[in-house]
């Protein structure tokens, strides 16, 4: 960034919730100073070429495992934030299944401090229960006071219906959102993949779609009962989409996300026995993929969230049933969506930027229209650039991407975070 703190994004097409227009964007002191053509630009302004590109509000990921504290061999806040910035993100919600879990204000502040040096904003999600053990409510008011807006025991669902009811009720009083990893643990019972044709053939224990849908059903009922805001994480089945559509039509205050891998890949991938394709919820059927895509197009699903879940190579070389579930996502999500889903750019950006920003309670900083005075959180996307995913060149500390070797069309050219060009010409600047 130049000494004046000024940068101009030149020659692109601005796309935000208000529509699209050809315009340059001048950024000064962390905010958008002007949007238009033929802008008067201060001397010593950094020029970022955006010809042929889409200039959009920075992306917001509702669901990322940054692994710090506790699992720094997999990822750190810094490395994840670099991957995020390279993927066009200006904010990520950090999941609380760290070690220790984010169930006290001290851990919230620790992750927030780590986030101060990050290449994007790190919004910390808090655990619903102490130690994510599903037995006793975490000090939610204390966590909310520290800045937590989203609560989840992600990695596991809250199994006890009464406890979940109390969490929703208590959360309603705090004005926060409860996010559920929908999985009935007893019915899923030690599964490593989706239960169906492939699990039967491969001899791997599977979890039926109903293990997810039972909890979706229960939590929609509890959201209706309590009036609390509920967000459903990484929905993966056609049945879940249908349940959410019906609940929304009935006015239940629910939002939902889907992960990019569930929108493209199916359980047939597991035939390779490569644990890189092990993820929870598991990859499901082609019919589920189609239903999720329809849910995105029709507005039942509000956001695409990465569920970025780094694991070290040695963990992903264990036997399939012993390997931990999870896939990288931050650096590839936007490109996967633009390559694989037949959605207009505007709709894709709604699902990756302004809608998740609203769910995360970050709409004052992220996802808003590109207009003078707005925080300068922007990503510049070259929709025609093709690249081949090479795990070794990703910024994450881990390499467990399911997109290895895949050619993607669309690449993030620049990312500006609070006015700072943290990615320039596809490279992180720090």
């Amino acid at each position: 960034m130049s000494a004046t703190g000024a940068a101009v994004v030149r020659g692109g097409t601005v796309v935000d919730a208000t529509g699209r227009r050809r315009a340059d964007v001048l950024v000064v002191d962390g905010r958008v100073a002007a949007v238009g053509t033929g802008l008067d630009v201060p001397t010593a302004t950094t020029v970022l070429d955006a010809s042929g590109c889409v200039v959009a509000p920075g992306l917001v990921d509702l669901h990322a495992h940054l692994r710090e504290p506790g699992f720094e061999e997999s990822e750190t806040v810094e490395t994840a934030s670099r991957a995020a910035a390279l993927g066009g993100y200006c904010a990520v919600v950090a999941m609380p299944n760290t070690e220790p879990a984010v169930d006290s204000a001290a851990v919230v502040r620790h992750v927030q401090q780590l986030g101060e040096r990050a290449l994007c904003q790190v919004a910390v999600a808090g655990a619903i229960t102490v130690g994510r053990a599903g037995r006793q409510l975490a000090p939610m008011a204390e966590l909310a006071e520290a800045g937590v807006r989203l609560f989840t025991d992600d990695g596991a669902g809250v199994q006890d219906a009464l406890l979940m009811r109390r969490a929703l009720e208590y959360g309603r009083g705090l004005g926060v959102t409860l996010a559920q990893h929908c999985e009935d643990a007893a019915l899923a019972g030690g599964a490593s993949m989706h239960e169906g044709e492939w699990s039967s053939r491969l001899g791997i224990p599977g979890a039926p779609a109903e293990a997810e849908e039972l909890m979706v059903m229960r939590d929609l009922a509890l959201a209706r009962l309590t009036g609390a805001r509920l967000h459903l994480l990484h929905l993966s089945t056609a049945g879940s989409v249908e349940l959410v559509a019906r609940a929304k039509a009935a006015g239940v205050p629910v939002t939902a996300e889907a992960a990019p891998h569930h929108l493209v890949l199916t359980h047939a991938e597991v035939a390779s026995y490569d644990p890189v394709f092990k993820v929870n919820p598991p990859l499901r059927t082609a019919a589920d993929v189609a239903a999720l895509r329809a849910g995105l197009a029709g507005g039942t699903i509000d956001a695409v969230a990465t569920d970025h879940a780094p694991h070290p190579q040695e963990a992903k070389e264990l036997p399939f049933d012993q390997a931990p579930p999870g896939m990288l996502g931050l650096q590839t999500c936007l490109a996967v969506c633009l390559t694989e889903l037949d959605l207009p750019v505007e709709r894709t950006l709604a699902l990756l930027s302004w809608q998740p920003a609203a769910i995360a309670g970050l709409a004052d900083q992220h996802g808003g229209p590109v207009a003078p005075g707005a925080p300068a959180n922007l990503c510049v996307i070259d929709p025609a650039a093709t690249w081949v995913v090479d795990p070794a060149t990703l910024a994450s500390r881990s390499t467990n991407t399911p997109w290895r070797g895949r050619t993607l069309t669309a690449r993030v050219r620049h990312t500006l975070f609070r006015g700072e060009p943290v990615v320039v010409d596809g490279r992180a600047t720090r």
Partner: protein
Amino acid sequence: MTATHLLSVADLGTDGIEEVLRVTDSFVEVSARAIPKVPALRGRTVVSLFFEDSTRTRLSFEAAARRLSADVMNFAVSSSSVNKGECLRDTVETIDAMGVDALVVRHGSSGVPWQVAGWVGASVINAGDGAHEHPTQALLDCFTIRQRRGSLEGLRIAIVGDVKHSRVARSGVLAFTALGAEVTLVAPPTLLPPSLEGWPVTVSHELDPVLVKADVAYMLRMQSERMTGSLLPSRREYTAGFGLTRRRAALLPDGALVMHPGPLNRGVEIAAEVAGMPGSVITSQVANGVAVRMAVLYLLLGGAG
């Protein structure tokens, strides 16, 4: 056989299975000699890498390798560095680096032989992976049936018991149907795979009507840990519904075969006296196992060396 590994029966196809059975014929002859040994794999090294207890399969492979004059190394997990936390890949690559020609892999997790095959230069033979496959068992079963009945074409084979958790059943279905047999799976729904889409089989939850028309009653081993909990109410109820009792064995047509992959739970899936009756070919299965594994090793390692 042109493959470098034997991971699944599906890798072989009908022609590949036929080829193994043809070569097995000649090794049965070798096994009957006073000195049952040929120099075909002299100088070759075969390692048995068993991460799960198995006496009979390991011994069978080792006997097969020795009768072909291969050098045999045995990696027993209990005495290995796996117990010191060494990861699977390091273990396998270390052994591969010693210059071995074939790794015979048994593991409690489905898919491990596929992972191993991706890491090593040696030929990998699947000696049983989780609830997935056990190809040499299926091959020796085909050989045994053919020995008694001439061909599998048109035979009705009932596979009875815990199909859900059985690698023997999965490989058996592939091999038996490839050779033209009609397979019926007989089990309570809790012991069947959740989906049978794409399986060329019929299903029955009742044993008696299937036995009356069966040419082969293939009884699966019922693991004791499956007989409690939510899969089955009790061992007694399983035996009453699906055990091959003397009464049920009498329903079988003349000339029908009784088979079992071993080890037997006498009195559970098969009555002691049924295991010993003339139609029972359980000991032939064990004897043929060595010859079939000789054929597999010979075909994979090419005999040139």
